């Protein structure tokens, strides 16, 4: 009988499907980082003086800081002077219309399943396409402009809406917040900018698709989303990178601001190249994401499905400043082979009757290590604050590890904080039951794991839930046998 192990081996021969390289001529700044390089990046982007200074200030801070060491991840020291901090496809100017985009880049996104188009498949979604360090296209801009919604690359926002950028950039994640945020503030290249005016409900999903293509570079994007009073926006971020033997650094910063009664829903499907089965190569994903519920009854909801990257270090957080504001964090983090993930959230309750909810589903397979790290902090003034945390881990095989590290700090006696945690193993009985009903082994694994993650998957916008479900299945191929 061909054993399950053999079947599984055959499946694992299949490689990361998004690992190709686009043959496009790129302009890359030589490796290394000093004030000159930062001035050069700023100049290339035609930035105003204040932003150049802001970057330099961040760089000076960064030089005095040390890489965080508290996460449960291990990697050799990163040589920050060996990285190139800017790579962009050569083009004279940003194309004026979608038709002028370099056919190679166009083909890249087609292969990734997100064609640069304003019809058909992506009809309900406006997309900003970021290729290495620059945004190459944004769809549906006109339609959104009619509603007063600004959706563009952050470089364009600096040029066209400097007052908004200046007011909010760094207001949630200050340049000196942490080592990686400081680095990002110094060298950030591109990313997306969203502003939704008061009372407007954004009629489509806004999405950015990040693609790392060039070798030897890092990607440092910056995203800023502002939801003005009573507005609503749902935003989705996706990402992939070629397969390479060396590790590549991705250090992004995302800042969200929700004013009175505004709501931001931010979803991520993270699928950076995780490295090969021996643990070689892959993206180091060191990301700072934070949302400020600034207004009364504002709401920020993070949903993440993390399947990629060699190392993930990421804690999308909510500062619940406005009274009765709500923060949510729904996470699926899946690690296989030699991947390491240390991810979770911080919920900081400042306002009265603020509420937060955390649902974390960690899945560890192969020899991977998967850690949930979460902080719930209730400040003195947070009268009647409430938090509920549900933290479940699923182990596949017996060479992986799952860890839960909750920190709880309560300074107000009227607060209520609940924490539940479970750890289980993928059950042979469940797999056999599914297979006896006709599901092939890999489909059975995907089905059981998707069931385990359902609460989180349900939070994803419909268009992406199907993709995310498939992705979980693919990422787990070869994990059982």
């Amino acid at each position: 009988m061909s054993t399950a192990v053999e079947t599984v081996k055959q499946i694992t021969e299949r490689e990361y499907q998004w690992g190709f390289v686009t043959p496009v001529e790129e302009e890359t700044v030589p490796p290394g980082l000093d004030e000159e390089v930062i001035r050069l990046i700023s100049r290339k982007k035609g930035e105003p003086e204040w932003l150049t200074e802001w970057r330099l200030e961040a760089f000076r801070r960064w030089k005095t800081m040390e890489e965080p060491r508290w996460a449960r991840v291990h990697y050799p020291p990163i040589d920050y002077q060996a990285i190139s901090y800017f790579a962009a496809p050569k083009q004279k100017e940003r194309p004026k219309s979608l038709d002028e985009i370099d056919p190679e880049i166009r083909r890249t996104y087609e292969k990734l399943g997100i064609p640069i188009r304003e019809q058909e498949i992506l009809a309900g979604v406006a997309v900003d396409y970021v290729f290495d360090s620059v945004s190459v296209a944004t769809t549906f801009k006109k339609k959104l402009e009619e509603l007063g919604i600004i959706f563009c690359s952050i470089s364009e926002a600096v040029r066209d809406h400097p007052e908004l950028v200046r007011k909010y950039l760094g207001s949630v994640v200050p340049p000196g917040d942490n080592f990686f945020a400081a680095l990002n503030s110094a060298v950030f290249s591109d990313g997306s900018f969203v502003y939704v005016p008061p009372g407007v409900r954004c009629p489509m999903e806004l999405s950015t698709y990040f693609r790392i293509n060039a070798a030897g570079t890092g990607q440092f994007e910056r995203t800023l989303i502002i939801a003005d009073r009573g507005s609503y926006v749902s935003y989705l971020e996706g990402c992939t990178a070629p397969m390479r033997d060396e590790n590549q650094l991705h250090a992004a910063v995302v800042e969200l601001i929700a004013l009175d009664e505004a709501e931001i829903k931010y979803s991520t499907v993270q699928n950076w190249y995780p490295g090969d089965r021996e643990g070689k190569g892959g993206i180091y994903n060191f990301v700072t994401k934070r949302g400020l519920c600034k207004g009364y009854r504002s709401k920020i909801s993070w949903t993440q499905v993390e399947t990629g990257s060699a190392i993930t270090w990421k804690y999308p957080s909510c500062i619940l400043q406005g009274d009765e504001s709500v923060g949510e964090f729904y996470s699926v983090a899946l690690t296989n082979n030699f991947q390491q993930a240390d991810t979770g959230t911080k919920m900081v309750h400042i306002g009265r009757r603020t509420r937060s909810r955390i649902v974390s589903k960690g899945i560890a397979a192969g020899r991977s290590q998967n850690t949930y790290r979460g902080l719930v902090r209730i400040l003195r003034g947070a009268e009647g604050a409430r938090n509920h945390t549900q933290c479940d881990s699923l182990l596949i095989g017996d060479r992986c590890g799952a860890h839960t590290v909750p920190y709880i700090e309560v300074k107000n006696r009227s607060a209520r904080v609940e924490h539940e945690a479970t750890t289980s193993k993928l059950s042979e009985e469940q797999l056999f039951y599914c297979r006896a009903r006709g599901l092939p082994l890999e489909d059975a694994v995907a089905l059981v794991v998707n069931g385990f993650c359902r609460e989180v998957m349900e939070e994803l916008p419909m268009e992406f839930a199907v993709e995310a479900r498939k992705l979980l299945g693919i990422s787990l191929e070869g994990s059982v046998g």
Partner: protein
Amino acid sequence: MAMLDIEGLHVAVGGKEIIRGLDLAVEAGEVHAIMGPNGSGKSTLAHVLAGREDYEVTAGRVRFLGQDLLELEPEERAALGLFLAMQYPVEIPGVSNTYFLRQAVNALRKARGEPEMKPAEFMKRLREAARQVGIREELLRRDLNAGFSGGEKKRNEILQLAMLEPKLAILDETDSGLDIDALKAVAAAVNALRTPERAFLLITHYQRLLNFIVPDRVHVMVDGRIVRSGGKDLALELEERGYEPFLQEAA
């Protein structure tokens, strides 16, 4: 050739021999019942036929519809037309009963090179089948077997049986834990599924089930072997005299 043909089967679990030389032939259209004391190896046989991996077949062969059954993966056996209603159906949290069944139906169709069943058609059939086995609509939306009562789980296995339309259905103590109405509903559903092409292997402890589903053959299993086979009257004899005489025969 018989639809299912087991010859000289020996099966060990964790080094201990549980099935010790078992022969059994089931023809298409027949209903066979296997009875036997606790621990005699009935569920082990059912699991081995369905393809569970933690059992070691040390000798013997099993042919099903002309194929060497033991060579096949569990899902291949299902695609070929084998179905096992389990004694202890497992719970799968987060996966709705309906979603699971649709995946199963389409997986079997795919394996057979048939197109997927249209969602509308699937729902229509599902409702019909659910009505027949007495499963409430609410149970179809719930997570598979999660929090189902013992009887609900058993009925749900029969619902799957009705939807998946196998050639050979093995029912491992589907009647245990059912109230009399449920037993009748399950029996009626099984009888409705009896066709000249489909065979059943009923594992049971109770003659009562066989009043409703009348078997063609009854086998007594003791200590990993079939020690006696006969017509439906054998079950009555067992009911009266218990397994004692057979235990001695086996020893």
